[in-house]
């Protein structure tokens, strides 16, 4: 009969670039029986969960990353068109940005890992490196416009390989991977309403895909099984932004993103083949699915003093209790709760004279409390972020990084993100 995966024992390898990890399997003897009813709860990384956090608010370039991801109140890059389009009115007549980032996250439970098939005694990391944002903004006839493209969500998971080896021969092998992203094209416009207020609207057109595959093989018997689930994604949604410049030193910002449906065209392909008998069995399925993204509202404020210090804070509410999705036409229940994400940051701006050139140096520090929507487990990421910007004439290079530590799930998940943005202001 079938070889039990649970009997495979592997040596544990360090993380490598493509995260090909041999998962260590061990048997834990049951010393204290527990007839507990708690069952499989994936928690953080369900199949559709974006990497790093469920709570996505547009696109986060380097300057915002260093500022605890606060994007609703500071107009320092055209990328704010994704988040609070009304801030476009505060930019120079023409500006552009180019952004690249590295995102790393640790996962414990996902796919077949730690859900019964493959067991790992440590969290497993995944890394995504991408040139993930570009755009520009300009002003014309009293209006401000922005266009951009950015990867707003990643769905990658660590690639995992496990083998059963006997007498130097591979008896059984399993390989799992998941990859995916959502790329958003953005068109924004904004206008000042009097001296204090500015209003903006952004239209986001998202397209992407996600692919998940489990490949199993019994090489000696020449039997192969491929289980592939993939989906193409698309979405169209708007975001409204409002900024109030109460005083030179005091600003408030409000952003609303109504609920919207991310549409999925799902495809499943299950293939079995046995070369010795020529057996080939294929089971396929297709469906139109959706993910009902929650509405979210952000309120932010900033206060600057002494021309060199800036304090800002942001609170974002996500209406996760209304989250719905279907998987091959069947409604899936995610037991989610509403959450409020909080962020606080401070910036310090200075000028430097180097080789008789004036440089503008900004340093940033921020903290973020990012509760995740799952009711079980009650999980929150606590993040610390920092950033640095160096400006010279019309250009500014931003660097930002954040480190997040999760509490509540018992898995102590972590996230890292570093980003570099080149901005130009004319």
């Amino acid at each position, binding site marked *: 009969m*079938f070889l*039990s*995966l*649970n*009997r495979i024992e592997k040596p544990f390898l360090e993380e490598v670039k493509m995260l090909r990890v041999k998962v260590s399997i061990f*048997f*834990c*003897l*049951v010393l*204290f*029986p*527990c*007839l*507990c*009813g*708690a*069952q*499989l709860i994936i928690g953080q990384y369900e*199949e559709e969960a974006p990497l790093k956090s469920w709570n996505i608010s547009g696109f986060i370039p380097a300057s915002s990353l260093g500022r605890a991801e606060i994007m609703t109140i500071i107009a320092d890059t055209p990328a704010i068109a994704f988040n609070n389009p009304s801030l476009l009115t505060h930019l120079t007549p023409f500006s552009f940005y180019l952004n690249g980032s590295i995102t790393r996250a640790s996962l414990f439970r996902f*796919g*077949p890992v*730690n*859900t*019964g*098939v493959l*067991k790992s005694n440590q969290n497993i990391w995944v890394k995504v490196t991408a040139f993930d944002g570009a755009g520009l903004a300009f002003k014309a006839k009293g209006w401000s416009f922005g266009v951009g493209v950015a990867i707003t969500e990643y769905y990658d998971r660590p690639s995992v390989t496990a083998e059963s080896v006997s007498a130097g021969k591979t008896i059984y092998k399993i390989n799992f991977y998941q990859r995916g992203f959502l790329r958003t094209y953005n068109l924004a416009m904004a206008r000042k309403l009097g001296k204090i207020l500015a209003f903006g609207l952004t239209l986001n057109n998202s397209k992407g895909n996600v692919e998940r595959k*489990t490949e*199993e093989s019994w090489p000696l*018997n020449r*039997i192969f*099984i491929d*289980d592939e*689930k993939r989906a193409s994604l698309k979405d169209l949604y708007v975001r409204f932004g409002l900024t109030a410049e109460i005083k030179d030193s005091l600003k408030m910002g409000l952003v609303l993103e109504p609920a919207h449906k991310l549409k999925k065209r*799902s495809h*499943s392909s*299950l293939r*079995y083949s*046995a070369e*010795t*008998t020529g*057996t080939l*069995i*294929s*089971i*396929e*399925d*297709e*469906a139109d699915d959706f993910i009902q993204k929650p509405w979210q509202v952000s309120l932010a404020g900033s206060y600057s003093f002494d021309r060199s210090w800036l304090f800002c804070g942001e609170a974002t509410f996500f209406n996760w209790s209304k989250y719905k999705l279907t*998987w*091959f*036409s*069947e409604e899936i229940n995610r037991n989610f709760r509403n959450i409020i994400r909080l962020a606080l940051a401070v910036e310090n701006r200075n000028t430097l004279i180097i080789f008789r050139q004036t440089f503008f140096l900004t340093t940033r520090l921020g903290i973020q409390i990012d509760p995740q929507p799952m009711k079980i487990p009650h999980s929150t990421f606590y993040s610390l972020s920092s950033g640095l910007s160096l400006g010279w004439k019309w250009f500014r290079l931003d660097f930002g990084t954040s480190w997040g530590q999760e509490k509540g799930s018992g898995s102590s998940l972590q996230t890292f993100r570093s980003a570099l943005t080149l901005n130009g202001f004319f």
Partner: protein
Amino acid sequence: MKEMAEKKLKFSFLLNFIFFLGASSVYAFPLSLHSNPEEIEIVSIEKNPISLAILTSTPEPLDFIMETESRIYLVAKPQDLNFLLSSGLIFRLETPFFAPARPSKEMSLTSGGNGIYHSYNELIADLKKLAEKFPSLCRLEDLGRSLEGRQILALKISDNVNLNEPEPGFLFLGCHHAREWISVEVPLYLGLYLVENYALNPRVQNLVNEAQIWIIPLVNPDGLEYSIKFYRYWRKNRRLNSDGSFGVDLNRNYGFNWGIDNRGSSPNPASETYRGMAPFSEPETRAVRDLFSNYQFQALISYHSYSQIILFPWGFTVTPADKYQLLFNLAKRMSDLMASVHGRRYDFGQASTMLYLTNGDTTDWAYGTRGIPAFTIELPPVDIFHGGFFNSERDIQPIFEENLAAALDLIQWGIDNYKFAESETKRKEKNLIPLIIQRERKIK
């Protein structure tokens, strides 16, 4: 005078012929036989020298299917039927046992991610639809919830379905093991067939009228969903064990000789045959147990895959069961019937000797606690090289058809056995009364 006599003779001959025809038809086949004169029928005839002589003397050779338990089965075209009628042979219509059942057109197969196989939601929807459409013939009973809160539903099929009549019960179970997707389809199709053909087929009507048929197509809904969504080869339920592994093998969790040794099941939670912390520790097996304890059952079939084999108790020991011969005969009969449909031969035998030792499984428990014939039918294919736990979608129908023949035959056997047992009980009671009277007289 002479003309009158001739007329009388013709008339009496005609009367006798009609009487003979009527008598044959009452026993042999329903009056609706000729409603579809162009269709073939499958009939069985008692094997004896007279019937053999007649059958071999036909103008054209008859299409023989098989011979079992002293009956000959053959495919009869309309002209063959006429021949049989004119020959005076008494034959029995067996077509219902071989009639293919197409999937109901109204099945709720939206998607589910697993082709035309039923996911949990699809199965629940179809069962509910069936019960709503045929409320006088079938009803659903909620046996409880799985570990992850999914319903475990049983479909009861009988006339007077809301009454617990003194009739023999039959239990058909599917999908103890999550990856055995075909084992959901076969019992489900059986339920659909019985209900949808009740009004059309007198034989089915008779079986349903005289029995209480219970079908639980999906004993392990959590495991099935995990098999569809995460890992195709998942076997167990979704119990989170204390060592971080998942799953109890539901077919090792039943309470008869549970855990008697570590060969027929495993104490290791990570094992594929982990038996659980205690007998009936799992809500899924308790659901079956509780249903079983509330009704009188004559026989049970638990569908699994793969191997293409019919197994009967014992699984926990190589020692034959005390009703070994009965179990053997029933298994052989089912195997013969299955082979007659598409030519696919299912092996049969005692579970411990045909496959491997098992303890805590469904059939040992049913036989061990109630003494009823209980079979594990491992559906095709025959081995891992021909698909293993994979069945092509186009194989669902043929596999069901051959198992339909076996299931209906087992129900008929159970009904006959129940009636015989009843009449024996009544006869014994009758014999007891004169003895009691005699004793009383003696005492006096």
